[in-house]
């Protein structure tokens, strides 16, 4: 049985761990991304690269320590540097880990790679079923996150929500996956009657979904009494890859294009244009402010940032942009966020 390493990204790690068993390979339970991951990864990555690269590489190395013999990376399309990751990993693996197989997954070679991992030719129906259950699991872990965003600013005792969230993930790992159970668990948290600030978080997707690299921005915001909201989530991105996203939401792709049009007329790769559109959308929805997260020197977000600043000054809409690199520290981030939230509160 092959042991496959899939990068552990935020809460989605729990969803991916359950994937392989039905398909005949084992997904290694990669440890959560930590500073050790960062150190291992940055030792052999080129300089000047976006921060996601060494982190994912570190995930692979940690998985290989636990016995993984093949690694999978999902290749991208478009102008963002992410499309290049897989091929550079391949080059590095050839040099440093010649015994490990590295696969870059594209739409064109999806079934080929899955068959290789399983070691036999899988029926398409089986793959489809596994994929559907994966998508459902991703949706579920996102729901847990949604609940935590709601309860964190309202909790009476600091840290209750985070504790319940971890418990929920544990229950999820053990195989009971019903949203109702999670809801009742969260409902037991003691809450106080407050009307929290609402802040939208926009930016690059890896930064939005990986809590270690963004220095737990969600938790810091939540514990300062802010109800967080994000439009960009993995579930929607998977639907987008299948061209299904417009059926599941009333915030469609063409609305994004229309919203961003007066400022930015073209896509700048990645989620650059979405950031611009989302900011305007949050403004129309009456949010109190925006936090923009980006890896240092991220091509799409850097191209989009001047427009965000322009929108901020034109509509008097507060914006905090935080760019992260290997040296980002949690206390510096939390200081800046606290100051921002205080300012928003004074403004009300």
């Amino acid at each position: 049985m092959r042991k496959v390493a899939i990068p552990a990204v935020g809460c989605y790690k729990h969803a991916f761990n359950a994937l392989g068993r039905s398909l005949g390979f084992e997904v290694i339970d990669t440890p959560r991304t930590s500073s050790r991951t960062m150190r291992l990864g940055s030792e052999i990555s080129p300089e000047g690269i976006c921060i996601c690269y060494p982190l994912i590489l570190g995930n692979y190395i940690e998985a290989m320590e636990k016995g993984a013999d093949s690694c999978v990376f999902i290749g991208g399309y478009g102008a963002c540097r992410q499309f290049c990751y897989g091929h550079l990993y391949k080059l590095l693996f050839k040099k440093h880990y010649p015994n490990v197989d590295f696969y870059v997954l594209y739409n064109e070679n999806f079934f080929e790679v899955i068959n290789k991992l399983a070691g036999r030719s899988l029926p398409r129906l089986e793959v489809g079923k596994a994929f559907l259950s994966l998508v459902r699991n991703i949706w579920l872990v996102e729901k847990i996150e949604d609940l935590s965003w709601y309860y964190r600013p309202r909790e009476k005792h600091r840290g209750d929500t985070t504790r319940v969230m971890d418990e929920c993930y544990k229950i999820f790992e053990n195989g009971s996956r019903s949203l109702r159970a999670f809801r009742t668990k969260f409902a037991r948290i003691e809450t106080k009657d407050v009307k929290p600030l609402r802040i939208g978080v926009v930016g690059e997707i890896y930064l939005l979904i990986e809590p270690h690299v963004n220095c737990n921005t969600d938790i810091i915001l939540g514990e300062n009494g802010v109800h967080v909201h994000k439009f960009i989530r993995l579930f929607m991105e998977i639907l987008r890859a299948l061209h299904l996203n417009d059926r599941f939401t009333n915030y469609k792709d063409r609305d994004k294009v229309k919203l961003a049009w007066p400022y930015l007329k073209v896509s700048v790769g990645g989620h650059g244009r979405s950031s611009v559109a989302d900011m305007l959308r949050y403004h129309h929805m009456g949010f109190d402010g925006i936090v923009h997260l980006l890896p240092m020197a991220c091509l799409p977000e850097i191209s989009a940032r001047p427009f965000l600043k322009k929108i901020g000054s034109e509509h008097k809409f507060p914006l905090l942009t935080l760019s992260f690199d290997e040296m980002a520290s949690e206390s510096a981030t939390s200081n800046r966020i606290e100051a921002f939230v205080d300012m928003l509160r004074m403004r009300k």
Partner: protein
Amino acid sequence: MKIGIPSALIIMKHPRLWTTFFEELGLDVVSSGKSTRRIMDSGLANAEDETCLPVKLFVGHCLALKDKCDFVFVPRYFSLYKRGWGCPKFFAPPDLMENVYDIPVLTVMVGREYESGILFENHLEEALITLGKRLGKDEGVIGKVVEVAISTEVEHEKGLRDEYFDLIESRKERILLVSHEYILNDDLLNMGIADMLKELEAEPILIDTVPFKYEERFSEPLFWMRWDFGVMMMERLKEALSHVQGVIQITTFACGPDSFLVEFVKDECDKAQKPYMKLMLDEHSSRARIRTRVEAFLDTLRMRR
């Protein structure tokens, strides 16, 4: 009508083309000229802080042209080839200049919209024709002007190729300078490294003079390198590597594509067993520092013989 052409970034990819085109159409052309320290400073003060140095310089050039002309010409370079992509920083400049810096902009999309052609002349031809129509000119006139503009550009590139074939016959140490057109042809950005090499009795070969066959590469299936300039750089490197003694790559700080290309270039040089050096430049670079490193590189290269 006066049209300003900033001589930086994307314009440098086809330096003769746009100027000839506007001049042949009978419009006044104002060029921002060579980069100066003042242009650089205004770019540094106004541009986005984390973006790369060439983009900052480009902002400086556009701001310098702001009051001197009716429109600043800023093309949108999506791709030069059918399956290629440009750097995302080449997509946004027209919107950036118009909406953020309030500069009146004349723009045209190169590539993406025009899926018909594979050859780069065709991509540009479509763009030029659209631009001519946008300026309200006759179709007959446009046809002639486009022909002249493209033949000037092709002539210019042919000149570069001839130069390359002369240079690889040279008896001195031949050093290949790997970088982007807008860095190699801008003495402020590259710190005059070509002249420096000449002073040290070596022969610099700029990578944009190396011939390159594009049609074949871009029709490969599962062709993964999507940056057209990246593919060009790699192909030209492979072509020229056997004719040179050493490779110097010049990158600027925070250049996104280069952070990847560096690894592939290094790998290629390792395979061919050619000495390789990377120089990373930013706004604080000093000429003396660069000279020391170039001297040391040449010394090791000569010792190796």
